[in-house]
Each structure stands twice: as C-alpha cells, then as structure tokens.
C-alpha cells in the first residue's frame, strides 16, 4: 500500500494503517530524537509523545507537505519542549560569529568518520560537543546536515527564513568543529 493510501485510511480511523505508519517512521523518529537529546530514555519519551500527537492530529494533515516533513515538525517541537523543561542546563553562546573561526592554526584530524561505529570514546566526544550546542541550533544542524533535508524544508519545520537557517547552520558547524578540534587535533 502506498503512503498516501495508508494516510487516507488512518485518517478514516483504520488502526492497522495507523500502526503501519508508526512502524514505517519509528526508527527515523527515535534516531532523530536521540541525535537531539543524546539520551536513550529521553529519545524514547520524545518518540512516544511525537506519535501520540500524530495519532491525535492525523486528520489535520493536509498533504500539502511531505508526511515526513510533518512528522519532523512534530518531533522538533517535542524536542524543544523537552529543552525548555531543562532550561538550567548550560549551553554555549553563539552570538559572536567572528570568534567561531580562528584561522591561525588548523590541525589535521587523522581519525576517520567510520571509526564512530566502533569507538565509544569518540561517541562520548561527539555527545559532549553537541550537548553544548543550544537546542535551536542543534535541531537545524541535524535536520539539514545529518538528515539531509533542504534548507527550505528545514526553515519550514523550525519556522525560520532561509537566511536565518543558513546563519544558524554556519554557526553550528563552526562551533561543533571547534569543540571536536579540542579533542581530535592530536588523534
């Protein structure tokens, strides 16, 4: 059955179609939630709330956007709600764009991206770096760079103009690179 047919049936109250939609997207939503929260328990909670919102409001899905874009909007909102609940957590300030790039000495990183699947120390470094990034920057970086959505789609999901998405992306990339550089420049 095509996704459009499944959505139509789910909107008519077909529980099997609803279950099938959940199964098609649970991995994507769980993985996205983990990439934002960096915590399996929080990722599961966010995923549950995302699909509960989907079940409750699927009749409102008009089909004007892709279904995945609609789900990314819901999960991003739940991630931001979770972020507000832990507002005392320290995040770096990214206001001064000029301080994010220091061209004086850029080291070569020997470690290759494939190592991340087998290296827990590297995973810890990646977790710690992105945890310092404010959630609104983190979500833009993950949607655009990690999930591979277009800049326009990312903007639509987070309610930002294309130039505003580009600005956040620029800062997020530079910030994460700097954080990783502190640990990886001698690896």
């Amino acid at each position, binding site marked *: 059955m095509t996704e459009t047919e499944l959505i139509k049936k789910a909107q008519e109250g077909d*529980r099997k179609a*609803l*279950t099938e939609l*959940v*199964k098609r997207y*649970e*991995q994507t939503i*769980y*993985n996205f939630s*983990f*990439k934002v929260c960096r915590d*399996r328990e929080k*990722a*599961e909670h966010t*995923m*549950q709330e995302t*699909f*509960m919102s989907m*079940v409750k409001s699927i009749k409102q899905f008009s089909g004007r956007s892709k279904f995945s874009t609609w789900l990314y909007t819901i999960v991003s909102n739940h991630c931001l709600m979770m972020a507000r609940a832990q507002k005392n957590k320290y995040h770096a300030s990214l206001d001064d764009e000029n301080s994010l*790039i220091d*061209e004086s*000495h*850029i*080291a*070569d*990183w020997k*470690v*290759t*991206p*494939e190592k*991340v*699947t087998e290296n827990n120390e*590297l*995973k810890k470094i*990646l977790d710690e770096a*992105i945890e310092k990034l404010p959630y609104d920057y983190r979500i833009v*970086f*993950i949607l655009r*760079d*990690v999930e591979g959505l277009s800049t326009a789609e990312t903007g639509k999901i987070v309610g930002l103009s294309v130039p505003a998405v*580009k600005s956040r*992306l*620029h800062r997020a*990339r*530079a910030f*994460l*690179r700097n954080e*990783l*550089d502190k640990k*990886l420049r001698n690896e």
Partner: protein
Amino acid sequence: MSKKKISCKEVMDYICDHAGESFDSPKCREIKEHLNECENCKHFFESVDKTISFYKIYNVQIPDEAHKRLLSYLGLNDE
C-alpha cells in the same frame, strides 16, 4: 598568506556556509584554487566535512522493547 587574493577567513566562512553542497558558484574556482595551495584551509575544509559525517554515521537502533512500549502507549496492536 597575505599574497593570496582571497583570505583564509573568507574561505573558512564560505566552507561553513556551503558544507555538504557542491562548490559550483562563481566564487568556487577561487575557493578551490585557495584550498589547493593552503594546507590550513584544506584541513579546515576536511574537519568541517568530517564533523558532519561523524554525526551522520552515529546512529542508534530502536530497541524491540521500546517498539513494544510505543505501540502499547498508543493503544495499537502489532498483529
């Protein structure tokens, strides 16, 4: 570095703006030429590229138990 037409800072800003895209703007040739002759910027380009790749490759699988708890939470049945 001062003899180059385009500054390292400009190149690094451009890399952060366009990471993950193909460099096909009119400015592209100048950027590529700079990258060919400037080790510092080349390392910067590679490290931004690796930063994105690290987070792309670092994925987690939904555990079976989490899948079951999800369906139960939603009142759905997997049969």
